[in-house]
């Protein structure tokens, strides 16, 4: 339940050591560089935009090339590869990559060019194929399509719509003999014809043909169609050949994929370094690094730096107005939930880390909502297996996610056993359907069946809710103590806690409430009396104090009254925990529905097989839907009900200057 203490660090060093110092710091990854000093006449920031731009261009080119490569050659990636984590690369490979760098960028550029060429060739191929299609009807013509006639004759080559016979055409042109008509090809849609007439009738023949909707071919070549067609086909073959060579070349770059991924990481590291360099104050011979460092690392890095270089290191406490970055310090049990806190917001200035307290409730609430021992078992075993199998290489965020579900799974098993839910009621259904078991339930619940006693379950859920809310208020008090704000401790935490507890006691003393909840507790009269008095005192206290930021006494009183009205908010907060019951019941009942459906189909020879299929598919869907529901609503209870009492967030996470690579890990 804590955050790492941060300190300001200033490093004053000589420029000749700049590259080596930066490399060391980047490797250690413990300083978040921030500019804390102003530029003056001597110290300036260096503009290195152009160098960075070059790296960014390379990143863009290589990313594009990889995308193209993936579309041509599928990358071999297994489903579990995301669990495996980053591949480790020895430091020498990183150091010597500089030589390879240019050639990899060249390959990336070549891939981009190749893809453009392939696209162009494909377009050309389509164009050719279109022309081939147009030429095909003319293949029997042995003169070129642009033939217009000889000295004494005129030739017309073209198409008529629909199918014509030779006789029909001769009939139309009978007046202009002598002439020769040839039908090159005829289909239902068009008839390709060649007409040769004497020059004398040239115009008349053309007119007549036009009247028959004669059109000239849309293409024209010097060569005869058959010959031209052969040419085209040859060209098409050539293009196909070229595309194939390009494809082959593209495929050959599959082996450079790793290099390209590495280049992306290499450039990411460089860009990160350039960002830092742009932030340094530099004079002619000296440069200054300023930033935040966790206290635990400060001494260590100071020693290492001073032993290796001539420089001065200064470590100071952060200033009051500093936005100190947040770095968590949690044990393995609650560390997995840092991500959940971060998705709300990291702790803001002066706030405590809620992860530890939240973790206890998180696992418990998740388990209550899923509350099926079978589902919990699957979750826990799956996560444990993945954690064990990839224990050495798995990345931290993935590890934390799996750990979270592992703990949630364990909690789910616990609550499943308490409420007697094992894949719904699978044991009962299998027992009665296949083995003739008569005594159900086969495994009775350790506590009770929520379906049979929903009111008891509801009461339990609300009790959990009240406890959760009280802890939230206690956290507010704890925070007030830490800030030595004792007024806030009493007014905002103690009064409210007293009011809530005494109200709960008073409600429990009412017959109506007892009847609704179906519980039987008798509180001694003295307790009820004390609760009454405490409730009045704390309510008055809240009215008088909770508007204390207003100077005007009337306004102050009204604000106090309004704050007391906030008690209705607590009512809705507590009712909100009824989702624990609803979601818990949903899991169990849907599970039972699946089992019941499976049991209905369990007769006959294939019965057991159908039964198994329905059970597996049904429960797979149910587990998916309910884990999603449990996750979302556990988050909601934490974010809205619990955090609403004391936590605002608004901090920024510690982002140290380091090697934030995506594909490879560089070993020291």
């Amino acid at each position: 339940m804590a955050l790492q203490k941060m300190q300001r660090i200033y490093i004053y060093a000589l420029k000749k050591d700049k590259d080596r110092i930066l490399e060391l710091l980047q490797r250690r990854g413990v300083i978040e560089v921030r500019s804390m000093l102003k530029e003056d006449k001597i110290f300036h920031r260096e503009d290195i935009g152009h160098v960075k731009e070059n790296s960014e261009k390379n990143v863009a080119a290589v990313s594009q090339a990889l995308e193209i490569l993936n579309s041509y050659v599928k990358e071999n990636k297994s489903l579990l590869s995301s669990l495996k984590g980053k591949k480790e690369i020895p430091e020498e490979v990183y150091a010597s990559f500089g030589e390879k760098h240019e050639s990899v960028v060249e390959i990336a550029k070549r891939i981009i060019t190749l893809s453009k060429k392939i696209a162009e060739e494909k377009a050309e191929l389509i164009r050719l194929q279109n022309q081939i299609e147009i030429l095909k009807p003319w293949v029997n013509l042995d003169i070129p399509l642009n033939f217009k006639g000889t000295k004494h004759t005129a030739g017309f080559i073209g198409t008529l719509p629909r199918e014509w016979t030779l006789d029909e055409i001769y009939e139309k042109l009978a007046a202009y003999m002598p002439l020769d008509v040839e039908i090159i090809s005829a289909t239902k849609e068009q008839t390709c014809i060649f007409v040769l007439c004497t020059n004398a009738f040239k115009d008349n023949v053309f007119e007549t043909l036009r009247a028959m909707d004669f059109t000239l071919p849309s293409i024209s070549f010097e060569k005869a169609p058959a010959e031209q067609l052969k040419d085209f086909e040859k060209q098409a073959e050539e293009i196909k050949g070229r595309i194939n060579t390009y494809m082959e070349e593209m495929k050959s770059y599959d082996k450079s994929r790793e290099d390209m991924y590495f280049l992306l990481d290499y450039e990411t590291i460089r860009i990160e370094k350039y960002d830092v360099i742009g932030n340094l104050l530099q004079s002619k011979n000296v440069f200054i690094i300023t930033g935040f460092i966790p206290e635990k690392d400060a001494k260590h890095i100071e020693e290492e730096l001073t032993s290796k270089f001539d420089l001065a290191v200064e470590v100071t406490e952060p200033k009051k107005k500093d936005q100190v970055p947040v770095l968590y310090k949690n044990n393995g049990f609650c560390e997995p939930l840092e991500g959940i806190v971060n998705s709300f917001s990291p702790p803001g200035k002066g706030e405590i880390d809620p992860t530890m307290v939240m973790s206890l409730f998180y696992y418990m609430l998740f388990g209550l909502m899923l509350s099926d021992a079978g589902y919990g078992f699957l979750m826990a075993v799956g996560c444990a297996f993945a954690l064990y199998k990839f224990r050495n290489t798995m990345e931290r965020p993935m590890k934390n996610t799996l750990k979270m579900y592992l703990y949630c799974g364990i909690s789910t098993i616990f609550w499943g056993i308490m409420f007697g839910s094992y894949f719904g009621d699978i044991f009962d259904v299998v027992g009665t359907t296949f083995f003739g078991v008569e005594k159900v339930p086969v495994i009775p619940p350790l506590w009770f069946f929520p379906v049979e006693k929903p009111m008891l379950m509801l009461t339990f859920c609300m009790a959990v809710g009240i406890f959760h809310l009280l802890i939230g208020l206690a956290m507010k008090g704890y925070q007030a103590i830490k800030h030595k704000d004792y007024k806030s401790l009493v007014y905002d935490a103690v009064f409210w806690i007293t009011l809530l507890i005494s109200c709960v006691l008073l409600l429990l003393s009412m017959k109506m409430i007892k009847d609704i909840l179906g519980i039987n507790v008798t509180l001694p009269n003295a307790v009820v009396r004390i609760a009454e008095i405490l409730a009045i005192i704390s309510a008055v206290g809240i009215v008088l104090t909770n508007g204390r930021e207003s100077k005007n006494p009337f306004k102050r009183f009204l604000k106090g009254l309004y704050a007391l009205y906030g008690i209705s908010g607590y009512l809705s907060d507590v009712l909100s925990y009824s989702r624990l019951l609803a979601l818990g019941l949903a899991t169990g009942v849907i599970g039972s529905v699946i089992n019941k459906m499976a049991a209905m189909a369990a007769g006959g020879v294939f019965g057991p097989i159908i039964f198994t299929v329905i059970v597996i598919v049904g429960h797979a869907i149910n587990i998916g839907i309910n884990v999603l529901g449990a996750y979302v609503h556990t988050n909601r209870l934490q974010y809205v009900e619990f955090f609403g009492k004391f936590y605002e967030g608004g901090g920024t996470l510690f982002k140290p200057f380091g090697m934030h690579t995506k594909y490879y890990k560089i070993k020291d």
Partner: protein
Amino acid sequence: MKVLNDYGIAFALLGAVLAALVPGIASAKGVSMGGIAGAGVITEDPAQFGKVLILQLLPGTQGIYGLLIGFITLSQIGVLGGSSNISFVKGLLYFAACLPMIIVGYASAIKQAKAAVASINVVAKRPDQFGKAMIFPAMVETYAILALLISILAVNGVSGLNI
């Protein structure tokens, strides 16, 4: 009255099937709204699939709650085996008990889908804000859960009444 008593089961069954039917329709509509918005995000940034899927599924729960109420009612009134001797009044009571889930389930699924679509847009622009975006549709769901709760309690309560 005696004649009417034969129709008790009809009203009870009507409640049960409407509980599965009406919120089911609304959830189908809600999930499809989410799916349409989600598909748009995926064309731009396929990496957001997991987050968008969660948001898309949020309005789907009402259908499941409806199914739950439907199932509990069916088993209480003996349609799934056992005697189905339900008086007219009891049949009406079962029907009334299903009403919160039927009506609130329908309305909340569609309203939640609208919040989910808005949250999907948040994820499209700022994937890092997923945690907050998820809470908005989850807020709407509260009312479906409250309706579910009352329906469960009412159905269970009615089965204990001796009328």
